[in-house]
């Protein structure tokens, strides 16, 4: 097991659970992807952090930050990083393949079915209901990570200020993500750089 940063390393007397094999990664990520209606992120947090405990909440937060700023689908990047951490390239491929293969066939089946039921208003309404729930799920994923910020070098209050700033910029002012990451993320990183000891 390689923790992604010294700060996030679990104490050595608490070995934390790991995937058994690349096959375990493939099956776990397939199951995870199939539960993720309208996005997989909330499920990743529930399965990887809370149930299987392959990631600590700190590691999840750090990995997610990296997955977010790299190009490509965030949850795919996250799966790649988790797979690579335990089994190198084989693990990375197993995790990403698990995330994509079975859901790909499901979505093709849905696309063929869709032609028949597209006009049914109840189907559209049920999808709307699921969309609203998945919005709640993702927001809760963020809320659950707030306690992790208590140990942050910038202090809890400053962190909450950054959370509020990003929320307002994206959700209320609808500023493009790239600018928010560059401006707010840049300030947060430079400030943290000054605070942590060299």
């Amino acid at each position, binding site marked *: 097991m390689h923790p992604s940063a010294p700060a996030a390393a679990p104490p050595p007397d608490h070995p934390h659970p790991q995937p058994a094999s690349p096959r375990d990664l493939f099956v776990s990520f397939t199951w995870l992807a199939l539960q993720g209606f309208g996005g997989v992120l909330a499920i990743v947090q529930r399965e990887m952090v809370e149930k299987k405990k392959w990631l600590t909440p700190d590691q999840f937060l750090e990995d997610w930050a*990296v997955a977010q700023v790299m190009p490509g689908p965030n949850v795919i990047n996250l799966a790649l*990083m988790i797979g690579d951490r335990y089994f190198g390239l084989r693990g990375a491929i197993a995790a990403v393949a698990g995330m994509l293969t079975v859901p790909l066939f499901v*979505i*093709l089946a849905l696309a063929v079915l869709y032609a028949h039921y597209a006009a049914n208003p109840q189907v559209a309404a049920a999808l709307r209901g699921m969309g609203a729930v998945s919005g709640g799920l993702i927001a809760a994923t963020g809320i659950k990570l707030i306690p992790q910020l208590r140990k942050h070098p910038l202090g809890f209050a400053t962190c909450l200020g950054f959370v509020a700033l990003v929320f307002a910029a994206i959700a209320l002012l609808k500023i493009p993500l790239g600018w928010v990451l560059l401006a707010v993320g840049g300030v947060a990183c430079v400030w943290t750089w000054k605070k942590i000891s060299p």
Partner: protein
Amino acid sequence: MTIAMQWHDWLALFGQYLLLSLLSISGAITTVPDMHRYLVAQHGWLTEAQFTSSVAIAQAAPGPNVLFVALMGWNVGLNAGGGIGAGPVAWLLGFFGLMVTMVGIMLPSTTLTYFATRWGHRNRTRREVRAFKQGMAPVVVGLLIATGWVLAGGNQSPGVPAWHLWLLSGVAALVVWRTRIHLLWLLGCGAALGAVGFV
């Protein structure tokens, strides 16, 4: 709809998705406007309805949202083969199109992420790597809450008061935060409430 695709058209499509892959910071969904410009407006390889339904189905289906890219390739292939009713040749071309767009959108970004995160891991004790990872933490929390907010209010029905949708999202967030109930139950409740006309 039927279109003619030459080998250099497929190559151009592949090249376009390789390029978009590197531009898809924070997710493939941010490149949708450019895909629309390329596939619908510039080349006419997809109809407007095929394009929007590809995105909508992927949002509603299980799995990563990036699979909308697969449906776009699938539809381009079907169109090149004479439509879904044209039989096995069209289906094969659909599958070929799907591979062209999916491999195109995945290959550059996953390769870059793979090597960049390995580099970051080897250099994890460096001050700037730690500052980056820890500094981004509050930003990520804010982004997650904002994404939930945008999804919650994004899809209002004309006939139903908006607060119904917000209430459903809010209750879902509260339940996920405070309990360990399986998320599929919540999604099922959302679907049922939608089907009976609450949202």
